[in-house]
């Protein structure tokens, strides 16, 4: 499947980056028929969520 192939392009990158790219691609695909989708909010939500997880992970590593 094309989706899988796209995701496979990024296997050498951090898991967080991979997840971010994968989710944003899914989002973009859903809005592909719109010329100028209002996509800033949804992307920020995805990034915030992933960044929080990253922050927790870093905090846990410190302890």
């Amino acid at each position, binding site marked *: *499947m*094309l989706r899988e*192939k*796209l995701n496979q*392009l*990024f296997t050498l*990158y*951090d898991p*967080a*980056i991979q997840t*971010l*790219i994968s989710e*944003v*691609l*899914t989002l*973009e*695909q*859903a*809005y*592909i*028929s719109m010329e100028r989708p209002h*996509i*800033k909010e949804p*992307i*920020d939500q995805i*990034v*915030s969520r*992933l*960044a*929080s997880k*990253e*922050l927790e992970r870093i905090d846990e590593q410190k302890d």
Partner: protein
Amino acid sequence: MKLERITLENFRQYFGRERLDFAKDKQRRVTVIHGVNGAGKTSLFLAINWCLYGEGANNVGELISKEAIKLARPGERVDMSVELDFSHDGERYLVKRSRRGIRMMDGSVQIDSSDEFMMMRILWDGQAQLIKNPIGTINAILPSNVRSYYLFDGEKIDDFAKPEAAKEVKDAIYLIFKLETLDRARRHLETAASDYRKELKNSTSGELINLLDDDERARGELRKKEDRKAEAAVEIDAARRKINDIDQHLRGIQNIKFLQQQRDRVGQDLKQRRSELEDVQYQIRDISTTSYFTILQPAIDDALQRLEEKRERGEIPSNIRRQFVQDLIAQMRCICGRPFTDGSPEHQHLLRLIDNTLPGSLEDDVLEITATLRTFSERVGRQRNDLTAQMKRRAELVDQIRDLDAETDDIGRQLKDSPLEEVSSLELQRQNFLADIDRYNIETGELTRDIEGLKEKIAHLEKRISQARKNERREKLLSIKFDLTQRAADAIKDTYQTYANDMRLRIEAKTKEIFKLLIWKESHFRDVHISQDFDLEVIDRYGRPARPELSAGERQVLSLSFITAMSRISEEEAPLVMDTPFGRLSSQPRNNITKYVPDMADQLVLLVTDEELRDQARANLESRIGYEYQLEFDPMTSCTSIVEVVRK
């Protein structure tokens, strides 16, 4: 996507409900739909496009069946719809687009302003679940921007092989392989990263560290002062003990011990008076802070007067209750017991009383408050007297204490001036210790004040530190957000080119493979090439670009090869729906295509004229055909019905 069934209702020349099922077996995956020109092949093709995407309906006239409009009465509604059942990734879906209109008097139809579009998921038990985001879901299954590569208009068959078609080829690859999706993702992520970077610039970092420093310093100072205060207390104790020792000593010295004894007595007295003074001050505090009512005697008198006035006017009969009066009226009996007549003066008087009295509970209130307020003047008197007495006592005590202090000083002077050196030196020491105690007390007072101030400061700092910690966390998060989005955008940028190139090469290889399979002059051509600039080229055996020499048929085969190559490489499950694809091909390429194309798509739907599919071409397809239909056009009604061709 695998098509299962289409149902048309009053769509163009399809009057009423017409339905057809699509072949979807692995072996028999071809659906053939025959129709002469004008019978409705193109309408059927259009129906699929319109149903899924709402597209393709411009400039083709009205979609609603003319027959349906004609047969409707003026004012009657006419419904039109196309419904498509399909499956994708193991799920079954139903998509329906409808349009409604009202037939007007003059035979025209007034259409509703917008079409209705609905998508449902059909669960295994047959239940239908409405999908909330139909457009997004369709785009995830078969995006609208690539539909023309799957829902394939035969007129455009040689588009990709035209000399000026580089852009078409590039667009096709770009869209089918979601390069546009990647590109948008990269752009949006870069914008987001840039926004986060801007936000980070307004950072307040460093604040937390400063606050923590301030906090540490304040606490250090606090500790020092508390320690010093404790030290001072110890010093005071020590000094007191020393003074006691001296007193003890002095008591033992014959000549002056009476003075010391006197001092002891005076000291006791002073202690007692000072204690009493403190008590008196507490009393004065208690009395004065509650003496507020004493300044309002005039106001109280005024209120009492108003209440009296009301009473005198009979508005508040002192003992008579409202209920009592009402009872009297009901019994037609006067207060004194004599009966009265209706309308008599006694009756009127009682009625007036009722009108002027206040509601029951108010009357009680008024009585109560009047009684209480009357006691105030006595309270005021007492309060004032108490205060005066206490203030007098205080003055007395202050005088007494002053006198006793003077006496103490005097004794001290006598002792200091004593001819006995031992005595005077002891007394001097004693006075020094007393001075020390005074100093320490003053210092303790200041320290106490400073300590309170520091505690407040620390509490304040704690609040700010907590806030700064929150801010710092927020910034850390922002910093991570920036990092993630920037790196993601960079990752896409770095990978994009490689990926795009990789796709290009794979499509090139596959196109070549298919082209070789389909073309009949195989040996004449050596290679198929898609350049970096996305030119689709065929290389002849002399190593030269052969496109100018390609015949129309050869160009069409090249295009078809390209399309099916893309379909294979993308690995998307998608049907290939072709509207009169063989119209312009000669029999040789047609035969080749019909032999191989069924395996190049997961599902194949062919809309053909009778001429297109004959003889060898027909024979090639025979074993792959699952359903076959004939579009029968009735010239009388201009309507088409879909008739299944029964296969043996």
